[in-house]
């Protein structure tokens, strides 16, 4: 059984103007579908990456996975337990403890007035667990020094702060860590240190990651399986080699062609055309059809189902 089973997950936000404005301006309520009918599984001890451009729904899925947001429909099951519907509080608690999250901005997610020791042990202390020597041990595990436990967050660089966030996430001995753009705020040389650390910890503790990123090269480096999102929809899922060598969805193809590469000296390729549509009024049928070079009549009528094509799952009428 997969560690995580996400089925037909949908999240809709009410983005209506206040009631009075709506009445005066005669507007309907408006809704934004941030995540639409997304299904995938994450096997234990693997890295599943979600990629996609800004607003494609990556963080919203991550938040539903850790329980920070509830789904509008569909389900997230962790080892068979549906966090949103399970009624046994003890069971929910046990599963919650198995999941931690790391965010993009390593400064905003650390309380500036707390010492590093208290930040790291907080999730465990809150449950009344034994925390003696824990912060010191974890700091050394993430490549900092035990002495750092007495310091405050502002005394650390961005990369060091992200190590502190990782130490805090490890404190509850989780099975699954949702990492939302963990290295996007870091310089490449520091990013390399943090990515290496995350790989080492994964092997050492048998962790599973949901790794959210917009950086294709980072995803290619880290992931065992990659899901590509467009406007809240999962359009393609494949292993890194299949995805990068043989992308099957026209959007994935566009994204890969647009990403600058280290060996693309003086490359002249026509850049992608058009823009990501307004998520409040997404195009009918396949959401990508206004920009798609392969679009046919059916594409503007019917939303494509996920199909298995040569080791990948692809939501496109024309892919084959």
């Amino acid at each position: 059984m997969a560690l995580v089973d996400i089925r037909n997950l949908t999240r809709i936000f009410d983005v209506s103007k206040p009631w009075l404005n709506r009445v005066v301006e005669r507007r309907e309520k408006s809704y934004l579908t941030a995540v639409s009918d997304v299904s995938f599984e994450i096997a234990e001890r693997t890295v599943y990456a979600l990629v996609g451009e800004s607003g494609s729904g990556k963080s919203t899925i991550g938040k539903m996975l850790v329980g920070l947001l509830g789904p509008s429909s569909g389900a997230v099951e962790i080892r068979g337990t549906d966090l949103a519907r399970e009624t046994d509080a003890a069971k929910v608690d046990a599963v919650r403890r198995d999941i931690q999250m790391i965010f993009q901005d390593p400064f905003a997610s650390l309380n500036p007035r707390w010492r590093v020791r208290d930040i790291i042990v907080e999730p465990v202390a809150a449950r009344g667990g034994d925390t003696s020597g824990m912060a010191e041990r974890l700091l050394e595990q993430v490549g900092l020094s035990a002495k750092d436990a007495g310091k405050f967050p502002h005394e650390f660089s961005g990369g060091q702060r992200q190590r502190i966030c990782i130490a805090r996430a490890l404190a509850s001995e989780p099975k699954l860590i949702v990492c939302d753009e963990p290295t996007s705020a870091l310089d490449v040389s520091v990013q390399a240190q943090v990515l290496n650390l995350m790989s080492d910890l994964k092997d050492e503790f048998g962790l599973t990651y949901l790794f959210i990123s917009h950086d294709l090269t980072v995803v290619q480096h880290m992931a065992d399986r990659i899901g590509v999102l467009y406007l809240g929809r999962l359009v393609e899922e494949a292993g890194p080699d299949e995805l990068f060598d043989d992308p099957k969805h026209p959007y994935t193809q566009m994204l890969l062609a647009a990403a600058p590469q280290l060996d693309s000296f003086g490359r002249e390729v026509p850049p992608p055309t058009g823009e990501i549509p307004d998520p409040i009024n997404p195009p009918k049928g396949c959401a990508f059809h206004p920009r798609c070079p392969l679009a046919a009549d059916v594409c503007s009528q019917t939303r494509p189902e996920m199909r298995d094509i040569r080791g990948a799952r692809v939501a496109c009428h024309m892919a084959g």
Partner: protein
Amino acid sequence: MADPVLSIRDLTVEIPTRYGILRPVSGVSYDIAAGEILGVVGESGAGKSMAGNAVIGLLSPPAHIAAGEIHVRGTRVDQLTGDAMRRLRGKEIGMVFQDPLTSLNPLLRIGDQLTETMLAHLDISRAEAERRAVAALEEVGIPGAAERVGSYPHEFSGGMRQRVVIALALCAEPSLIIADEPTTALDVSVQAQIIALLKKLCRERGTAVMLITHDMGVIAEAADRVAVMYAGQLAELGPVRDVLTAPRHPYTHGLMGSTPLASRGKDRLHQIPGAMPRLDALPDGCAFHPRCPRAHDRCRVSPGPRIEDGGGRAACLFPMVEEAVA
């Protein structure tokens, strides 16, 4: 060869503080020719923006140019003040920043912003300026330009706004564009559009471009030459292909090795130990020596040789030769 559009010589920027003088830019020299894109890369805090701001006279006090010279099309500009600098900025130098909203007035229609800028710097009639405003928006790929001149900045998406900023930077026909992280806030598909646009304008109009970014991929794709900065100094300067595929400075070498690359697969990434030093704690000798795998005793006391145009490519006492990136 024709004179360069921009020439920076031994530029040093200083910030006096209670604890002593900080040098965010120290002894930097480079040129940019007409029609050339010079990429400036380095980690955050390396001094890329400070060097760019020094050229356009936008250093915020107490930061100031303490030494060196800056020439734009043969005219010395580092001593210009107030009005003279403002005039030069609009006329000879266009600017594009990471956040397009810093360059746009939220209360003015974009057509008016373009028209006013042209009237201030070009000797043309209002009718001509209005005609050119539409043409400028068309050139940067704003659909329906003739109608969109009446729109306000907030009515555009992030990528569209950055196009408007580029149109604004170019409308007075400057000879130099300074683009400081112009695509950092944008998605890859929009980034590809903006980079293609900058390259096209540079090629067609012969504009010189200083492209500041921390993204090596963008540099590889867009730049002709690249300047690598570290701790306020120029570490390496040369043709982009040479510097990226066969770096001579150990820092550039480490930087390239730590960038994830398809061909490297899932192997561990190369790590440069430690972090870039803070400006108030610069080591003696070569600023990179505490992190450098090649450091010798001499590196701890003597800084690497400065890079002069036509001189060596790397500011290093023991540069690497013919060592491929791992």
